């Protein structure tokens, strides 16, 4: 029955066919959204995670020189937001506080006893701090944007909004 019906539908003209092809192509316009890649170029001892840019989110952890996979993001401008963990700074602090057996600070080859400034403030849990780039990047239709995170182009991010309750 449906074949019969299709046969009875009068086929449109060449112009209408072109219009139909255009109409079929339009829904794919989001394929022209810019592709964005973010590279961790901060420091060999710094890792980042939850990198986001204008609605795109990369959930993995990026070691130094690693890049996110390309992701299509909505066109527009934004800073890159991320969580940063400084492994060297953490390690130095743990050594100073003497929280890990067998690991301590040394000075000129001589082990220095642990000297926590305030035992009550020893923090053993690795902390990831919110950071964002100083620069705002713009990505438009058709762009391939490669954004490098560098130590000179980042600041702490205090703009994290609270949840929106409906």
């Amino acid at each position, binding site marked *: 029955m449906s074949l019969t019906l299709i046969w009875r539908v009068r086929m449109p003209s060449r112009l209408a066919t072109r219009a*139909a092809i255009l109409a079929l192509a339009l*829904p794919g316009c989001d394929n022209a959204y810019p592709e964005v890649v973010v590279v961790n170029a901060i420091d060999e001892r710094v890792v980042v995670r939850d990198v986001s840019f*204008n609605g795109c*989110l990369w959930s993995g952890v990026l070691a130094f020189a690693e890049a996110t996979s390309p992701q299509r993001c*909505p066109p527009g401008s934004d800073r890159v937001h991320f969580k940063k963990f400084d492994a060297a700074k953490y390690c130095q602090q743990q050594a100073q506080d003497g929280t890990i057996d067998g690991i301590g600070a040394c000075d000129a080859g001589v082990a220095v006893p642990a000297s926590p400034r305030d035992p009550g403030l020893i923090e053993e849990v690795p902390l990831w701090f919110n950071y964002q780039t100083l620069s705002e990047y713009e990505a438009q239709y058709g762009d391939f944007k490669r954004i490098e995170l560098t130590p000179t182009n980042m600041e702490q991010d205090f703009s994290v909004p609270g949840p929106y309750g*409906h």
Partner: protein
Amino acid sequence: MRSRSQPALMLLAGLAIARWSLAQDPKVVTAPAGDPGGSGSAQASPATSTSAAPIEVRVVGQRRQRSDRTADTVRVGGDKLRASPKATLLESLAQEAPDVYVTSRGAAIHGIASGATGGIHIRGLGGSPNSQVVVIEDGVPDYQGLFGHPIPDAYAPFLVDEALVVRGGDSVLYGTNAMGGAILLRSRWRQEQGWEVETDSAFGSYGTIRESAAVLGSSGPVSVAGGVLALRTEGHRTGAGGSNLIGQVAVRTRLGSGWEVTLRQKAMHLTGADPGPVTHPYDNHFFDVWRDRVSLQAAWQAGAVSLRAQPFFNIGRHELYDGFRSVDTTSGAVVESDIRLHPSVQLLVGAAMDRADGTAENRATGDRMRVRAQQSASWYEQVTVEPWQGLQLVGGTREVASPGYGLVFLYKGGFRWSIGEGWYLRGRAAKSFRQPTLSELYLPFPTSNPDLKPERSFGTDAGVGYASEHIECSAVWYRNDVDNLIKYFGVWPAAEVVNIDHTTVVGLEAQVVASDLGPVTLRAGGSWQDVGRYTKQNPSARGVFAMEAGQPVGIWRIRGSVEGEWVHGLYMNNYGQDRIDDVFVVHLALRARQDIPGREVVVEPYIMLRNLLDRRYAYVKDYTMPGFHALGGLRWVL
């Protein structure tokens, strides 16, 4: 702070344009005899005749909305909703009424819980959450047991016959939550004997696939209407995707002697996530919702008396990414009778009872939240008098009895006066109320307060309108005085939810439509309101416009529409804090329809181009809406 000159400017703008939908005036459509399901009904009655064969006189038309024509309403047909380029049904309705504002965050899904949109504001009330506006679907108030408001994604136009937006409170007729207004949805039936199948398949940007199928049939005394909508989208950004599956079936049988029984069931499964702010997106803040609603309606009509009894049961299960899981129920029944006491006097009496209950737990932490069920019973009466032709007076009361809040007395009164040559005046005052939701009373999201009192509002409006063959326009002034408004303040853990003493919303709304100017119909409307300090998601001005045109081209009928929306004075918080840029967005829809000769078959390819100007805008701060995108599809009616 808003400019002092803004109200005056908006007043001038509002008076310069006027409203287009004089919904109180019924459209003439064909309808089967004795449709008790809603406002639309036709009645067949034998006519006395001196001829041998009886002559059947069939009055074709729509019953006025429970006789009350004094309310300020907008009536939107299902075909128009299905053809709308807007992503959801509620957004399509808001396009038809400037004083109705609905938030959005994406191309298809509103969602639930944090980050959800779809809040309905009518004349400054509702929205956050949208529990001050009641949605009544096929005679059943639709709200969740725990959260006290409907799920915006539950409404899809594929089976809607007509939607009626009642602007201004009317708890006398619609009970709790009808403070800002009510949205009445009525599903369709096949009008003639036989069967029809309608399918609509569409695909679009962001991997969006939408498929709906409806089956309508009428065979002898039995009518069937069923349909399925399946929607899936990846969303315009991380976390904005989701899926929505809605199934609906209704069976109606005429038992004779004026009796008719209708059984309805509607189920939905909604999944998605809160994408979070665009600058700091969330990772997998998912939600998963199942809901099911069943209602049984028995209706009887004989002469000047009609009777309707309709029990209903609504159950839902909600699960969130953080371990939250709830199961809630809403149950109740409505018994209502409409009696024409005299050709100019109509009496509506009814009784209703409802019960909201639920359980909630956090499966991650093992916490169970204590919730106490809430129930109420009410009875109401409405008298409609037409002392002379063209003047209608309406008065009504409702008494609500609740174990928690005692006896609540509600009332309303209104008039509509057709003063001739197409002009009319109308006015109305109504006392309405909303009982606190179980969530506000008991659930810590972000906080609760078991001592909350019901909200009460006194709404008044007055307007003037004009209707002719090609021009319809109206202007309305309204004022809502609300006591005990329930508002959340602060953020967890210092958040609180309390009744606030008194607040007032004053506004103007106007619309105009110039229809059938050749192939073109033009619509425009605007509203302005002063919401005081409670500016959170409560815009001070809104404008809508549309141009529709249709033209036969060969065997095809091409229809197109351009419609747009402008929202001004939008804030993310109260006291005018966190201003959001004005919204201005334009959509385009193009449809080509071919009716295949000799068969009841319709083929209609279409395309919708949304955000035609590719503007960056947001209704919710940092929940940026998609840029230009498209949805194309094909509709078949067999």
